[in-house]
């Protein structure tokens, strides 16, 4: 047997059928489940560290540096502390719903990673409808969050949960339309094919699509300017006000696991997943995830929060028409066959389109109402 060279690349060449792993399908499945769970949890720990340290430095303070070298074990310390905390369930709470909510919220966050390629062909299930699976799964966690809001029978969490449902419903559409733009150029729904088709990273071919997807993605997982679901200055801690102990740890994990998932999807769709010059492909993939996540941390430190009706107006009046127009223009360009031959012409044209459209929308169309209801 050839020496067991751990480089996945030559073992698993690109084909849709699961590879003929020495042990067959089940070994492949087991290996990748372990990889995904290990990868997500360690990356979530790393991402929590980056966020707390990055935000600290941006606020001219230090951030955690006491636990472990340079504070690296801070996420572990947080997890241990939260797990040891008492598990309080409010008396008026709907016990089952309260207990089940974190599970339903956490499961989709991990399931998203099944279709994300770490390397060429190295993914749990190379579905040929990969991106559709991602969009479907990512809206399941809303049910979990709404159950949390309803289950803890607390007015603040009910407010938070209602906001979450309203926001996710209206941000699904711009997100999907932005993805469709990418799929049009790549020609296939499977994430691995999309990455393969990206000799010019799609962020250049689809600048407007990238902006729309980043905004809609941040709203989906309630981060940066759209973090209304647990807006701590208004509704205390939103849907997870009444959670403590293990269940709070799950929600804390959900928030960051979904942030990692969305940045992984952005990395695969727009920044050319595992493609990169010298470094091994999986390292490129992690670097891009951390880069996109740092952008989220950056916006979270600086930008104030948007009000709930502005959030809705932003989705329906700003993102939605823009994504339709973007889709229309990309379709024309794909018909004219630009992505393959005149790729660089398309890049310049699309950037110009983006600037013009943002200018027009913010100048004329998109006017935000006062928001005061005469009682």
């Amino acid at each position, binding site marked *: 047997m050839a020496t067991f060279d751990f480089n996945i690349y030559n073992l698993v060449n690109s084909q849709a059928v699961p590879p003929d792993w020495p042990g067959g399908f089940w070994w492949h499945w087991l290996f990748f489940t372990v990889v995904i769970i290990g990868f997500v949890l360690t990356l979530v720990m790393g991402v929590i560290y980056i966020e707390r340290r*990055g935000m600290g430095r941006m606020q001219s*303070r*230090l951030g955690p540096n006491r636990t472990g070298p340079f504070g690296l074990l801070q996420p572990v310390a947080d997890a241990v502390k939260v797990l040891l905390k008492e598990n309080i369930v409010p008396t008026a709470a709907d016990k089952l719903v309260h207990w089940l909510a974190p599970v339903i919220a956490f499961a989709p966050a991990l399931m998203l990673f099944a279709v994300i390629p770490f390397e060429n062909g190295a993914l749990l299930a190379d579905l040929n409808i990969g991106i559709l699976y991602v969009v479907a799964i990512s809206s399941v966690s809303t049910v979990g969050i709404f159950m949390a809001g309803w289950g803890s029978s607390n007015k603040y969490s009910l407010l938070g949960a209602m906001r979450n449902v309203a926001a996710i419903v209206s941000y699904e559409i711009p997100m999907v339309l932005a993805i469709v733009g990418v799929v049009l150029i790549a020609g296939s729904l499977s994430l691995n094919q999309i990455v393969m088709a990206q000799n010019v990273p799609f962020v250049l071919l689809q600048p407007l699509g990238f902006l729309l997807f980043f905004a809609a993605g941040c709203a989906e997982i309630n981060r940066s300017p759209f973090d209304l679901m647990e807006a701590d200055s208004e509704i205390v801690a939103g849907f997870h006000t009444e959670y403590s102990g293990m269940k709070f740890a799950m929600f804390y994990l959900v928030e960051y696991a979904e942030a990692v998932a969305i940045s992984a999807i952005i990395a695969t769709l727009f920044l050319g997943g595992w493609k990169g010059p010298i470094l091994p492909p999986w390292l490129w993939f992690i670097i891009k995830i951390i880069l996109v996540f740092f952008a989220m941390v*950056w916006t979270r430190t*600086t930008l104030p929060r948007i009000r709930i009706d502005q959030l809705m107006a932003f989705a329906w009046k700003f993102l939605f028409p823009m994504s339709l127009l973007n889709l229309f223009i990309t379709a024309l360009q794909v018909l004219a066959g630009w992505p393959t031959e005149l790729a660089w012409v398309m890049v310049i044209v699309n950037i110009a389109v983006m600037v013009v459209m*943002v200018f027009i*929308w*913010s100048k004329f169309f998109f*006017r935000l109402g006062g928001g005061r209801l005469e009682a």
Partner: protein
Amino acid sequence: MKLERYGIGIAKGLTVTIKHLLRHPTVSQYPEQRLNISRRFRGNELIWNQEKCTGCGTCAKTCPQGAIEIVTSTDAAENKYVVEKYEADTGYCIQCGLCVESCPYQALYFSHNFECAKYRRSELVQGKEKMLDTPERKVSGYFYPDKAEKLPEQTLLIEKITEKR
């Protein structure tokens, strides 16, 4: 939101935060790096000079909280008050400094340290012997400019370089 400035406002705000990544943090690590506190700092302990004190009780009268308790007995020989009991309940004391300011014989000072937390409320009451001037209980320069000269200079945040890395 009306992006009448097409997101320039947001972009300028973002540049401010990213610039802070390249600057020194303004915080210091307390137990390891200790900053010098002000020379006139009013610590939460009193220091009492037995010789100078004549037992007049002005400090007990001026204390707005009534935290100082003084019991004196008359010593007919030298026709002087002898201070039997002199207690300052630092639980009541709000460190306002009126006692040190009003003492006509400069017998009362403030201590210069601020780490005097105790576990029991009864330990907060400072008896006569616990108020004497000892090396580890330094005297603060509050209302005593000569004592202030001996204390180290206060570290100011303005002097700390936080601009360039």
